[in-house]
């Protein structure tokens, strides 16, 4: 029986290996195109500053053999020194930190929305499996994950901003807004609704379908029959026994989806001019600021690794049946 500490250490080590793997992939990708790493990073092909490329050559010691170059690159990334962004005129790490808050707000709202609605819809569908309500929800889910994010966003803007005039079309705050704190929060909330919903729809559809099949599976198990047999009302059976157990696979899926959602936020933030990491990524694409893009990629990969680790730990805490060796 392994102790919790050794489990933690092994998981941490595995996560570390994955981060190293990601660094290796970044390095390989940077060295494939013609020219050297500095050329690629500085985006000289796109009209970047050649002086900047020289500075990069100096920093990574690009006249050294490739193994030394790799060690230099690896140590600077692992120290979270992501270099300098020439389009933002600041270190990449600082640029990311500046924008992180807005993206976290958007993503956490979208995750919450997708999780709550998805679980609810999946539960209703699973409880009524084979009935018309189930069919309706399944069709909605099918539509949900065939809809391109950017198209959905534009349709929502068209409907709620241009035609109805109910919600703002972009940004995070009304410019020049003055008022007490709750008014400011309300204002941000108003700006948040459309982008968060747009980002949530795809995942909502996935969670709903997963929850549906999970509910059907759990509902057929013995402990549910026991609960019924001891005279529990149907509502309570579903609330206390089925939902709680059926939610576990959805929780795992949630952890796996963080990376995908980070990608989706690039598109959503671009449409809604949300001042977060995604919008910055779009600007970096436009300016061919490869170093900034690589920094965002690296930091989001680290985010995914950390989230997976947390979900794993949470999981073994919620469900003690899942062995620590798993």
């Amino acid at each position, binding site marked *: 029986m392994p102790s919790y500490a050794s489990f933690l250490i092994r998981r941490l080590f595995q996560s570390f290996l994955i981060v190293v*793997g*990601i660094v290796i992939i970044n390095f390989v990708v940077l060295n494939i195109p013609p020219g050297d790493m500095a050329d690629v990073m500085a985006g000289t092909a796109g009209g970047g500053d050649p002086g900047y490329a020289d500075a990069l050559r100096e920093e990574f010691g690009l006249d050294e053999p490739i193994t030394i170059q790799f060690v230099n690159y690896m140590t600077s990334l692992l120290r979270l020194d992501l270099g300098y962004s020439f389009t933002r005129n600041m270190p990449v790490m600082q640029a990311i930190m500046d924008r992180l808050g807005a993206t976290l707000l958007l993503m956490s709202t979208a995750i919450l929305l997708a999780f709550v609605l998805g679980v609810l819809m999946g539960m209703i569908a699973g409880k009524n499996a084979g009935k018309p309500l189930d069919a309706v929800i399944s069709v909605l889910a099918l539509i949900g994950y065939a809809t391109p994010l950017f*198209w959905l966003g534009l349709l929502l803007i068209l409907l709620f901003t*241009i035609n109805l005039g109910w919600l703002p079309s972009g940004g995070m705050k009304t410019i020049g807004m003055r008022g007490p704190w709750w008014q400011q929060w309300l204002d941000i909330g108003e700006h948040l609704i459309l982008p968060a919903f747009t980002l949530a729809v795809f995942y909502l559809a996935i969670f709903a379908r997963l929850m549906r099949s999970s509910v059907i599976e759990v509902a057929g198990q013995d402990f549910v029959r026991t609960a019924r047999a001891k005279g529990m009302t149907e509502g309570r059976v579903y609330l206390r026994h089925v939902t709680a157990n059926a939610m576990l696979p959805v929780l795992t899926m949630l952890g796996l989806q963080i990376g995908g959602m980070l990608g989706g936020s690039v*598109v959503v933030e671009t449409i809604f001019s949300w001042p977060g990491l995604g919008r910055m990524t779009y600007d970096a*694409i436009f300016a061919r600021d490869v170093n900034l*893009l690589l920094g965002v990629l690296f930091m989001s990969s680290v985010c995914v690794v950390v989230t997976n680790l947390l979900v794993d730990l949470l999981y073994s805490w919620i469900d003690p049946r899942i062995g620590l060796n798993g």
Partner: protein
Amino acid sequence: MTDAAVTVATETPLRRRKRPRAVFISGIAMLALIALAALTAGLFWPAGPWVAAGEPYTPPMTAPGLPLGTDVLGRDVAAMLAYGARVSMLIGIASTLAAAILGIVIGATAGYARGWVDDALMRFTEVFQTIPSFMFVIVLVVIFTPTIATITLAIAVVSWPPVARLVRAEFLSLSSREFVQSCRLIGMHPARIVFAEILPNCFSSVIVVSSVMVATAVLVEAGLSFLGLGDPNTASWGGMVANGKAVIRSSPYLSIIPGFAIFVLVLCINVVGEGLNDRLNPRMRN
């Protein structure tokens, strides 16, 4: 994104809902129609999608010969749509094919060799599964400059892990089955066991997973071209939506029409993928 879609599409509902055959058939018919439009675009619009065909901003159904109207520069929306179908379908299919081959090679090697080779390859796969795939595609396409080929390869590079894991699992379970053991017993060459006995038995599951990957690839390509990372020499649906976005107040049809095309294509691929799953997935066949 890919993983989630694959997991969901290949789920095995215990109380299986009978998915109507008519939906499957109409999905195939619709896909055939889109493919036909893509293939015959050159016959109907031999001058290509970039030529001006009428007054700019002609709304749909108002001018003869321009059923879907014209865009900001007076180009025929219908022509751009047909040429865009080529790009979407080509990239969707080619990148999935490349990803499937890569996944089969890696998964088969891991599953057949076992031991440390398996361990190493699975760690490798895990790294690729961890990197946020859309972000990774963006970085790859920016570094290698956007062309049809680089976009296809970039999408393939992020989509192979589910195939590799699936093929590995199939190899692990199949190679302990009796028919494979008897092949070993009669001294069959390992290469022949792999190619003639085990691999053909993996194909139906690979096809099911791949069909969903095509849908994801189409969405990723659309997202890329919406962000301005499409091949600049070809018309693409995502790019059309991006161009329409600037004039969404005055001419909303310019973003609605191409977006709808993406939606229909992806929906049809998903419907057909699920139909294939019902018919081919070994876990569902009984």
